[in-house]
């Protein structure tokens, strides 16, 4: 991050604006801090991680006593943020798109209860699945919860919109969904910051019934939410973030949401001859869409993610075909947009480009040299011939790379924490022995309840926690599991004779294979903690991890 001061000639502007180069995620974080933030909660996940990291490092956040916290999972983070809002203060909660699935219960129901202090839910979607299982579009969640959605088109908007998002949240007493995408979250640009908003004071509500969703109260609150929809639509209709530009050529109109507008401007160097509706604030502004329908012959919808707007405004039976986009094939159905895809959709000639030579080999990500997961997989692979193929259920993290060559050690990864319940279910079906491989942070995120379920039913599964004392893949954030795994396993009821600690190092290879073999053969829940700090961590962090890992290995 770099910054310098711009001295303004305009004397009306009393504040001295500061320009910085900020990553989209940093612009979101700085915007929140300057909008009077008191608390930031989240769980690391690409492409959202840098928002909370920035607040942790921000001197301004420290001066203002802003609480920043990595929660154990996204649902917990959202509920912590709701608690801060309940107490009257402004909070954000951040996550990647699939994290919103985890937090969905809280998300949908806090739309029913409403909020007190401003609450902004920042979700970073990942079109093109750069680091994700899917490219789900969080705008559907916003609509589902009947909440307003902000979708900034660039880093400056990401910064500026945060103040509006908090104001709207408090005005309507509802959470606001703030949607980013990888190409905004992970791109830097010049951002001019503005004056800070004061933080809210602690405010104890005199009537808290709306936060107690027993059916009799909840029905009233649900009705309230429905009744607010008209006001939400009116606010979006007049929002400065939604702009209609009348073109000189009405053969085409373009609706562009979020960052898609940039690819449109890129192709016309900012001067688009057609009608353009820029959408960055939902509900979709109906009057502006109607105006476009009235003025132009054909509409092209540009949106990064699912065909959310396109589906809403398309003729369901496809008789008119006035609206084009991802559903009609004008834009590819999957993957993120780019300037070239948009050029083709606009019928503009694409530049003749060089091709990638055939000799260029793929270079997929891989486990770091010296990584403890490698040793664990080598131990596991030695046992597979005797245990049987296709029965290692795994999870989300660096160790997911074990599904690739040269390891081929794990067979599944679906969502955070799926490994243990899937192993149990497969064992129930007769696939025995069944093994789960899960990381330490994923285990405390969503693995513990699955383990308890297996213990409760005394299922013959072996759980291996590949414990590197970090949330490694997102940049080695601290793991809530550090120093707690043994006690958690014991507390959840795993027989202490079958909780083993191994150190995944070459010199212990044979011993480790033996321990894993014994536990796999045990007809109940066994749990092995393979413990070695992440190689990417600083020596300081590794030493801290070793200080917490006080249990002796089982040799």
């Amino acid at each position, binding site marked *: 991050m770099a910054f310098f001061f711009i001295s303004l000639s305009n004397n009306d502007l009393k504040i001295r604006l500061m320009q910085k180069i900020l990553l989209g995620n940093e612009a979101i974080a700085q915007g929140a801090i300057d909008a009077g933030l008191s608390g930031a909660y989240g769980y690391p996940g690409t492409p959202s991680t840098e928002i909370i990291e920035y607040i942790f490092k921000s001197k301004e956040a420290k001066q203002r006593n802003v609480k920043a916290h990595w929660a154990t999972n996204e649902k917990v983070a959202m509920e912590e943020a709701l608690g801060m809002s309940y107490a009257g203060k402004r909070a954000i909660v951040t996550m990647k798109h699939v994290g919103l699935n985890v937090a969905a219960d809280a998300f949908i129901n806090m739309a029913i209860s409403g909020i007190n202090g401003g609450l902004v839910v920042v979700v970073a979607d990942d079109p093109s699945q750069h680091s994700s299982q899917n490219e789900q579009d969080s705008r559907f969640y916003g609509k589902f919860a009947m909440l307003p959605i902000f979708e900034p088109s660039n880093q400056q908007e990401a910064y500026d919109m945060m103040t509006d998002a908090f104001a709207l949240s408090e005005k309507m007493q509802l959470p606001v969904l703030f949607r980013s995408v990888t190409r905004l979250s992970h791109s830097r640009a010049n951002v001019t910051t503005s004056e800070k908003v004061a933080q809210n004071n602690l405010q104890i509500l005199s009537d808290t019934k709306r936060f107690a969703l027993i059916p009799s109260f909840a029905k009233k609150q649900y009705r309230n939410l429905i009744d607010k929809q008209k006001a939400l639509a009116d606010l979006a209709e007049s929002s400065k973030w939604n702009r209609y530009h009348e073109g000189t050529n009405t053969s085409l109109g373009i609706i562009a949401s979020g960052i898609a507008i940039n690819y449109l401007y890129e192709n016309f160097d900012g001067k688009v001859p057609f009608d353009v509706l820029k959408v960055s604030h939902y509900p979709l502004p109906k009057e502006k869409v109607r105006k476009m329908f009235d003025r132009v012959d054909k509409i092209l919808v540009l949106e990064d993610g699912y065909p959310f707007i396109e589906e809403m405004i398309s003729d369901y039976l496809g008789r008119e075909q006035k609206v084009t986009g991802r559903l009609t094939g004008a834009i590819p159905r999957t993957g993120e947009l780019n300037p070239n895809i948009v050029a083709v959709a606009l019928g503009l000639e694409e530049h003749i480009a060089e091709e990638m*030579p055939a000799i260029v080999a793929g270079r997929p990500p891989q486990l770091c040299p010296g990584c403890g997961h490698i040793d664990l997989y080598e131990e596991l692979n030695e046992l597979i011939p005797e245990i049987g193929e296709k029965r290692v259920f795994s999870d989300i993290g660096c160790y997911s790379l074990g599904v690739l060559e040269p390891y081929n050690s794990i067979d599944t990864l679906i969502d955070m924490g799926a490994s243990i319940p899937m192993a149990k279910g497969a064992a129930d079906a007769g696939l025995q022995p069944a093994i789960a491989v899960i990381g330490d942070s994923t285990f405390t995120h969503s693995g513990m309840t699955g383990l308890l379920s297996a213990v409760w039913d005394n299922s013959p599964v072996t759980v291996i926690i590949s414990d590197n004392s970090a949330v490694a893949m997102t940049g080695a954030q601290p793991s809530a599991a550090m120093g707690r795994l043994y006690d958690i396993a014991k507390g959840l009821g795993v027989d202490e004779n079958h909780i083993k600690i191994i150190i995944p190092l070459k010199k212990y290879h044979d011993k480790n294979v033996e321990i894993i073999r014994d536990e796999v053969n045990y007809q109940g829940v066994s749990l092995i903690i393979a413990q070695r700090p992440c190689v990417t961590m600083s020596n300081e962090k590794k030493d801290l991890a070793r200080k917490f890992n006080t249990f002796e290995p089982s040799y």
Partner: protein
Amino acid sequence: MKKDIIIAGVGGQGILTISAILDMAALQSGYNVKQSEVHGMSQRGGAVQSHVRISDRPVYSDLVPKGKADIILSVEPMELLRYLPYLHPEGYLVTDINPFKNIANYPDEKLVQAEIAKFNHHRMIDARGLAKKAGNFRAANIVMVGAISDLLPFEEGLLKKVIADLFKRKGERIVQMNLDAFDLGKKAVIENMTV
């Protein structure tokens, strides 16, 4: 003025440091900049890229359109070729010649160099060797900044100031080593020491 630059390499080779230098130089020159980068899983030894767009006019797309890159700068020769579709017909290909072989099917180095040599505007530099000469092979990325410095819309003094600021925390010796690396990269181009 507009410069579209793709920076390529393998996770861990210092791509983001090069990007940060260009960002800061652009900001201090009063230019607009957009710079898209890769975080997350690909950073683990995978192919990574950064798009740097600098202009005195508004920059719209965070991504460089295909066929528009003025420079493709790579700290690894095969990675340079991966982004050829982005090259403008008048654009420059600039790369470190030292391969990073963390995959089994890495192509014949001679074939890689032959592909690069097909283009008139190419610069192949032994950045690793020059960085070693400056004091540490890890400074190869800074050698590469020197090797494109004449193509950038910045004064040399500004680039050096930005590099010095960036490494200030690590002490005077590291700052000097990186400034030397920059000079060696620049000199290699001037003296046509390209391989």
